[in-house]
């Protein structure tokens, strides 16, 4: 911390003040009417953000693989339960990825439905962090009318290889003197705004667009903050508050950092290191420019409109980029970050895709490929041949296979507990035992789906925690897969088109 002793005193005083006058923000001396509109605007945003509910996904409780330093799986950790063998295996694959030496290894996670295959893949993605590219696709995504199967696979491969490179960007760095946001009197329509920034040497006024106003309000930027704006992306970073404002008895938390007002020009060029994927470089370089843009600058914006999605990328472009990346690597300008490509439901791929994978895995720019399937011995798509997991033997031979096992009762209970926490549901012990029983007899997914439904039933009867009765109620309301099958078998005669006399519906 750069705070000196008296400054931290100030922080404490200001903290005391804030409790007495929560509306202080409107009484700053330099405020005039327009600023006030902006300030109240910020307040409204704040209230909305507190009440905003995070969306909960099927795997949002997973934060990692749950391994210790010796790669031993802890029984319950980071949202993961059981599957210790599979997780340990995944941990070893992780080490391989982190070392980044070996290209083109492939892993298959095989197991029954609902045994945590996707969860393990998600855990790996979480544990690798944001700097390692992790691409997740479903097997059926490959089949698109816009591009060939191999193109879609190639793009997925190249999305999973990162290149860490230094780039020069233009940033604006200064102290906020004034931020003024005007809303139209009618209440609807675009807001207009002005932002005045200064350094020790100069001052500049900027006109703000809609997006910029939104991100300024989101970052809660106010007069006296030192901010940087990335000119190309418009990203705002708050560096701290100006030292000259340290004496304002203003609302500020103990973590407020004080920084000096920047010197020199507002606009600066700065070198930043970031990771881009090979696919992104491909896209940038396959955009074509028209001759129109040559002599009149005003057409450039117009042309940018048409350079969106590119569809298929030419082979020559990729070759050029591979050569360029190799050159950068030799010159020490960049570093290759091999990532992970995860293909879920891999049995949906057909024989052409599999033979393409055989070939693609041999390239030295291949990522680690992780596939997941829940099929046993089945037909390979596009052929008449049967094969384990619906994958040709020659590809299977190149894979490291991790298998997941059905959960035990104790583990199911643990997972349901974690999900209850994630979905913010209180459940009594009895109800939990019943739900675990249901999970054992039907499926884990069905039991998880009953959590939120039961909690809604409980809330309707104004109960504090989910009871056995609530579980019973939703269990009777919603059929699981086996009861539904049973029902169909019994009442088959009553359904439509049954009189045609077909024994079973044709499903291929």
């Amino acid at each position, binding site marked *: 911390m750069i705070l000196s002793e008296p400054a931290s005193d100030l922080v404490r005083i200001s903290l005391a003040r804030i409790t007495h006058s929560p509306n202080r923000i409107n009484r700053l001396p330099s405020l005039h009417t327009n600023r006030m509109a902006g300030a109240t605007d910020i307040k409204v945003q704040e209230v909305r953000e507190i009440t905003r509910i995070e969306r909960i996904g099927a795997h949002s409780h997973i934060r990692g693989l749950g391994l210790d330093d010796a790669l031993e799986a802890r029984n319950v950790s980071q949202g993961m339960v059981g599957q210790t063998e599979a997780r340990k295996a995944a941990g070893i694959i992780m080490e391989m990825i982190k070392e980044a030496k070996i290209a083109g290894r492939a892993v298959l996670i095989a197991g029954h439905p609902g045994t945590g295959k996707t969860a393990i893949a998600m855990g790996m993605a979480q544990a690798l962090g944001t700097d390692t590219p992790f691409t997740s696709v479903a097997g059926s995504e490959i089949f698109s009318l816009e591009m060939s199967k191999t193109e879609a696979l190639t793009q997925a491969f190249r999305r999973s290889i990162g290149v860490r490179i230094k780039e020069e960007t233009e940033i604006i760095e200064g102290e906020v003197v004034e931020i003024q946001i005007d809303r139209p009197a009618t209440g609807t329509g675009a807001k207009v705004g002005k932002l005045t920034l200064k350094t020790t040497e100069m001052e500049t006024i900027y006109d703000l667009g809609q997006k910029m106003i939104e991100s300024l309000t989101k970052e809660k930027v106010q007069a006296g903050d030192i901010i940087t704006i990335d000119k190309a992306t418009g990203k705002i970073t708050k560096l701290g508050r100006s030292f000259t404002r340290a004496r304002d008895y203003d609302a500020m938390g103990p973590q407020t950092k004080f920084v000096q007002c920047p010197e020199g020009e507002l606009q600066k060029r700065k070198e930043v290191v970031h990771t881009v994927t090979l696919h992104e470089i491909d896209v940038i*370089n396959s*955009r074509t420019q028209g001759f129109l843009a*040559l*002599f009149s600058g005003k057409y450039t914006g117009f042309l940018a409109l048409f350079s969106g999605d590119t569809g298929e990328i030419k082979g020559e472009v990729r070759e050029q980029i591979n050569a360029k990346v190799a050159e950068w690597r030799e010159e020490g300008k960049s570093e290759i970050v091999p990532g992970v490509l995860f293909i879920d439901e891999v049995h949906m791929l057909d024989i052409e895709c599999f033979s393409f994978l055989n070939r693609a895995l041999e390239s030295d720019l291949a990522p680690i490929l992780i596939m997941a399937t829940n099929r046993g011995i089945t037909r390979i798509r596009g052929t008449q041949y049967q094969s384990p997991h619906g994958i040709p033997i020659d590809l299977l031979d190149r894979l490291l296979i991790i298998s997941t096992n059905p959960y035990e009762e104790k583990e199911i209970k643990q997972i349901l507990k974690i999900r209850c926490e994630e979905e913010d549901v209180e459940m009594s012990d009895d109800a939990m035992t019943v739900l675990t029983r249901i999970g054992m007899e039907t499926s884990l997914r069905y039991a998880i789906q009953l959590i939120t439904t039961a909690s809604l039933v409980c809330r309707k009867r104004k109960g504090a925690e989910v009871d056995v009765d609530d579980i019973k109620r939703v269990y009777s309301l919603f059929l699981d897969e086996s009861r539904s099958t049973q029902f169909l078998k019994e009442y088959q005669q009553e359904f439509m088109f049954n009189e045609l006399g077909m024994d079973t519906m044709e499903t291929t």
Partner: protein
Amino acid sequence: MASTWLEKLKSSQKTCLIQDGRRKIHFTFSDGTELAEEYDAQTWELIIRKWKKKGTLGAAEKWEFEVGEQLGPKNLEMEGFIESSSNPVFLRKDIKDAFQWRIRNLPYPIDTYSVTVDPDTHTLAIRTTNKKYFKKFTIPDMERTQLPLDEKKINLAHANNTLIITYKKPQEILKMEKVLHEEFKKMKAMKDGDVDCTPS
């Protein structure tokens, strides 16, 4: 040296076009950088000189104006945020025997401004005593020919809210420009308008 710059221009791919009384020349260098110049067809006054460089990843960046300015409106929504039109506008607009910069929207009296030369970084700096405007800039022509900057050659003038900075061109620059103009005159220029199509 002046000769290396001339060689670089000579080795580039050039297109020439006469349009609206301007001689427009477009250069493409071996590294993909583009340079576009516009001269007054009669007086050979340089109106626009702009550069377009390739980004590190191969993306084309916007035109950077070395001389002249981009006309036409800027779209606020597309850019996200732009400098307000009431801010000082800095642009270079050369005259025959001097480099000249004009900074519009600077209402302060002339004794507010000072221009200094930093010989180490080959930059000039404009400062204001009221801390309202500050800018560091280079003279790319002088950098390309590796000539030293001389503070005595700077002249300041202020009128109509505009600060005019003039820097006398040295003999070497004047000579080089003359050679260049002779070269450009030799280039075959496309004429704008209907293509000549005499039926045979």
